[in-house]
């Protein structure tokens, strides 16, 4: 029993932090918003050099063969920096391809993923849209319980602009065929469920970082802004709203880490653990948004102030990979209808 991260895992996070702090400022985000694809191949290359995209790629495909526990602090760090490049679908697609019974797609694509030459998009039934379909080199799509893999020339995309300009959503028109089919029946169901949980965990981790950052922004602003002759951070109203948000965010942390462990070990409670992480993270980030906005006052309502970059991230991450309400209903159905799968207070409930 040990909840702590290894030195390697923490160092990985620090490397990423240094990179994002230097290369991915709010000015970068605003520039990307004004760009054609809203995605940066330079940032993607650098990310791959750090090793993030090869992390989940098995060693036989030139990757590092590591797991979600190795990754989760990095995902959190991306949330801290409102980093929105298509990391989540690519990671989810990576494991999906690696886990296919037929290894040919993995052989073709995973070395490219590890090398930063391929981006993956993954559809899941809980959303009508596909994220980052416009920059994906391979799209893994679902229809009638089947999984299909398509190349960009095989799909027609319609852009669906989101409230979060960093969130690139598309409706995808496509036709399934025997050539595109990669899994069906039980295999497809299992892979699809795992993919969804993996995406949800990743989004939860980013929400955690994002929520914590918005609280810090609020505290910084409240320590600089004066009204009534004092820093507004001295007012209990401000203090207590920040504290309440912090309580929520703090309790998200272990839920996210536990969900990462559950995924890495395919625990029997994987789905409910992931849903808890995603729901709790979505709610905490929402509280942090509201509090930070209120602390910033009118300033927070301007385009110029950076807060909204993070608020929009929080909103779109909350809706991605199952919204709060979807996960809340999934938890209810597992906890109430199916009964908690472990014995009441006992056995390996933690994992």
């Amino acid at each position: 029993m040990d909840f702590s991260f290894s030195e390697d895992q923490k160092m990985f996070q620090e490397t990423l932090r240094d990179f994002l702090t230097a290369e991915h400022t709010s000015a970068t985000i605003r520039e990307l918003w004004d760009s054609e694809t809203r995605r940066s191949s330079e940032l993607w290359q650098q990310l791959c050099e750090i090793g993030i995209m090869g992390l989940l790629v098995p060693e036989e495909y030139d990757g590092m063969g590591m797991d979600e526990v190795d990754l989760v602090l990095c995902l959190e760090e991306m949330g801290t920096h409102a980093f929105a490049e298509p990391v989540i679908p690519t990671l989810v697609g990576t494991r999906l391809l690696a886990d296919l019974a037929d290894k040919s797609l993995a052989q073709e694509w995973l070395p490219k993923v590890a090398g930063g030459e391929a981006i993956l998009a993954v559809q899941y039934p809980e959303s009508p849209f596909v994220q980052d379909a416009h920059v994906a080199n391979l799209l893994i799509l679902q229809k009638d319980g089947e999984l299909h893999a398509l190349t960009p020339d095989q799909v027609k995309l319609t852009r669906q602009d989101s409230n979060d300009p960093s969130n690139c959503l598309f409706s995808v028109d496509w036709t399934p065929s025997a050539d595109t089919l990669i899994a069906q029946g039980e295999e497809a169901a299992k892979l699809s469920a795992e993919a969804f949980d993996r995406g949800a965990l990743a989004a939860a981790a980013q929400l955690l970082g994002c929520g914590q950052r918005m609280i810090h922004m609020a505290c910084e602003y409240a320590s600089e802004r004066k009204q009534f002759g004092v820093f507004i951070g001295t007012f209990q109203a401000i203090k207590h709203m920040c504290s309440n948000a912090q309580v929520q965010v703090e309790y998200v942390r272990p839920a996210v880490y536990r969900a990462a462990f559950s995924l890495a070990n395919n625990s029997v409670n994987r789905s409910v653990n992931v849903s808890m992480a995603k729901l709790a993270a979505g709610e905490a980030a929402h509280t942090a948004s509201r509090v930070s906005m209120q602390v910033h006052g009118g300033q927070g309502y301007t385009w110029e102030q950076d807060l909204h970059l993070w608020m929009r991230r929080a909103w779109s991450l909350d809706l991605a990979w199952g919204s709060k309400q979807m996960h809340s209903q999934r938890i209810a159905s597992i906890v109430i209808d199916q009964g908690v799968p472990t014995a009441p207070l006992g056995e390996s409930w933690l994992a």
Partner: protein
Amino acid sequence: MELRFTAEQEAFRKEAREWLEANVPKEPLPSMDTKEGFAAHREWEKTLEKGRWGMVCWPEELGGRGADLFDWLIFEEEAYRVGAPLRVNQNGIYLLGPTLMEYGTEEQKKRFLPPMASSDEVWAQAWSEPNAGSDMAAIRTTAFLDASGENYIVNGQKTWASRGCWADWGFGLFRTEEGSERHKGLSMMVFPNDLEGITISPIEQLDRETGFAEMFFDNVKVPVKYLLGEEGKGWNVAMATAGFERGLMLRSPARYQATARKLVDLYKEHEDTAPVSAREAVAKCWMKAEQYALNTYRTVSFLKAGGKIGSEASLNKIFWSELDIEMHELALSILDAVGEILPYAPAAKGLVGHWLDGYMFALAGPIYAGTNEIQRNVIAERLLGLPRK
């Protein structure tokens, strides 16, 4: 107590409904915080004026109907019922108008009210300054009388001037007494926005529209006749205006009742997929919109019987601003994954995205017109008698 409408009120409602159904533009107008939207909304004001619906409770000579506030509430209900455009001159007709009637000279009333009623002159408000937000008494923009005694010379900066980008006139609070502090030595003034020395710079807000502006004053000459109320007593005048803002007029109950009814419809459309908890939550929102309306009718009864409202306005401000957020958050949770799509995106089909727009706007509710934290202080100290220090 008689909570049924009179025959006259019912007849008034019928007339309003018929006129509105015949005259409200079939397509929603573009946002009033865009140049073309502002013009379109000003056009709508002229249409209202022609039908004598601009401010029904204003005297007939101002294009009103000399009706009472109950009729105004009824008119608002009917306007929201058919989805009439919002009021681009709200700073004028809802806030400055009533203040002028209370504090203005006869000359000022004659000069300002008719073109306000017709929206030939649209008004911006200019309270806040960069360092005087919640703390409005920290105002530093000065307006000192010049040697001739004919003009105030205004210097400084206002911010969050709503409608500041397009409006013709502005009103605000200025420091007229040198060396004065806090609530003392302030005066309320109106001014044409095109005076020499005024520079207006739009503030780009979350939705990238510019409903607000910064206003810079560089030795601007404002004639003394534009002083509203006594010199140095501006704080009281401003508080009266703020009372209108927080309280009765800025946010008529019909606005929230209309949203609540749309929310019920939205829920019914999505009943199969909405979270089970949404059902009671929707009903509760509907109830709160109803409570807000009831309280407004109660307040109007009280005013009609000769009562005055003061700090009670702070209760309203908290109630409507929190309700607005609650309703929009709930709607977005019912819409689930499509809730983030902008109105013009194909999948939004022109409707979904308006909940998002509404939510973005609602988020500002607990901030403008005095943050809800300020309102809670007011309630605690003035209504509940808790000690200041």
